[in-house]
């Protein structure tokens, strides 16, 4: 049987998910995801033409609360787990290159 998903597609999905996969992982996931998707397609046996999708079980929609000022975490607590920081900022590699004029 043809595979549900091929290696090219697995690489594309990995890129969307921002996951760098090794060649071995690409091969492994291609087989495993195909088997899982084959199983999942069991759902096609059901006629769901007139069925509403159910994203959530509770009978609640918008939940509002009073707009009141409360204490927030504060800079130190917020930055306490930062992999890298610079003064009061999270530090990350440069996002714009030098030619962008930014």
């Amino acid at each position, binding site marked *: 049987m043809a595979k549900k*998903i091929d290696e090219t*597609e*697995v690489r594309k*999905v*990995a890129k*969307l*998910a*921002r*996951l*760098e*996969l090794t060649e071995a*992982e690409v091969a492994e*996931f291609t087989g*495993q*995801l195909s*088997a*899982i*998707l084959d*199983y*999942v*397609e*069991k*759902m*096609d*046996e*059901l006629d*769901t033409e007139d*069925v*509403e*999708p*159910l*994203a*959530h*079980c*509770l*009978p*609640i929609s918008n*939940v509002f*609360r009073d707009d009141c000022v409360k204490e927030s*975490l504060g800079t130190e*607590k*917020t930055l*306490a*787990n*930062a*992999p*890298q920081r610079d003064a009061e900022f*999270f530090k*990350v*590699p*440069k*996002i714009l290159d030098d030619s962008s004029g930014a």
Partner: protein
Amino acid sequence: MEQLSANQLRDGIAAGRIRSLDATKAVFERIRKFEPTIGAYISTFEELALEKAADVDQRIAAGDPVGQLAGVPVAIKDNMCTTFGATTCASKILENFHAPYNATVVEKLLAADAVIVGKANMDEFAMGSSTENSGLKRTVNPWDTSRVPGGSSGGPAAAVAGRLCFAALGSDTGGSIRQPASFCGIVGLKPTYGRVSRYGLVAYGSSLDQIGPITQNVADTALMMNVIAGHDPADSTSIDETIAPVCDYLKKLDEPIEKLRVAIVPQFTAGADEQVQKALNEAIDLYMKLGAEVTEIDMPHLDYAIAAYYVIATAEASSNLARYDGVHYGHRTENPADYIEVYSKSRAEAFGEEVKRRIMLGTYALSSGYYDAYYLKALKVRNLIRSDFTEAFEKCDCIIMPVAPTTAFKIGEKVDDPLQMYLSDIYTIAVNLAGIPGISIPCELDENNLPVGLQILAPTFAEDKLLRIARMFEKETDWHKKKPDIEITNHD
């Protein structure tokens, strides 16, 4: 001391007959002796626990008021945020993460004067059915150390069964409280979705996740529910108590349900092992002996629950786990070439295989061109599954079925075949899709001396009734009193 239930210990401490400090010291003695074998905890807080216990003892001696769990040593699954210790989710990506706030359930435990012993192991991000997916350590089943404790709340279940605490909190997205409770011969309740606040619970599948108790018996679960149930303004999916009030779950616990109507689903449960079937049939007989009327019903869509679940849960997971990007907290790769590598390499280095697989599956199901075929289809099937339950509960008070098709399996038995591992969740998953409460209680020991669990399901917000139905069974049996003789081994 270690033979006491959480209720008995609580009453003894409150009456001044037992000191919490002695109970807490006894727990840490057992941890020193058995934890190297069982591996239930990712972290423990001996100093903090002894301090809290001494404080409770002092207040009781002085006649000051104390909380409902005063002095009782409890464990929590390591996906609930605590300002003390790390909150790892058993993942390398959060190995050194220190939460800046406590989960609401943790605040409630502390307010009830519980003594928090430690944070228990789990499958990484609660993804798994055996705790073998923990990125940090291995937990074994106290009944047989060559077997898994179940998952994903394998650590809390092993801690309760091994008496390395008196009660615990787990979380259940597709069976993660009930199945390990079943494998470890104890009680586990997944409350109705929205009954217990998820604030501070690290998200996996947000429309499915629910925190609940893992305890030695039904009364202890009721006690824990009295502490943790209720609305929380910090969780917009926690239910308003004007819609569904919480009650004192202990108060009427020993009152049986008159004219109990029990439903069974023989066509759906036919695939379970012979011993599991036998245990189920004996449970059915017992309920009939207690005066229950037992009816066979058909729930035609339950066979599709695993398929729908593994699309919905992974889709939600792929979105929830996008936050682990190496920017604000968690693991960051060294020397990334550019900012994209901060994401893709940090995630690749620190997520385990099952987490990657689920992120991939969920991303695929949500991606352009496949959304309708997988995700939307699964949401529709979810509605059909919920309708099966709604219709069933028009005719019965509860549904009983096995928790899992087998008892605890061997370590390593299913790790190479993810689909086989997923299929072992067949009896627990539909409950999360429908949002209803479900409990696992011990109902047998099989020929290998391994516990078998009985699963009882009730309508939305009927936890009080569910606990009473479970208690009816428990009162007539001794399974919940059986404790494992832990064979000390050294796996490392």
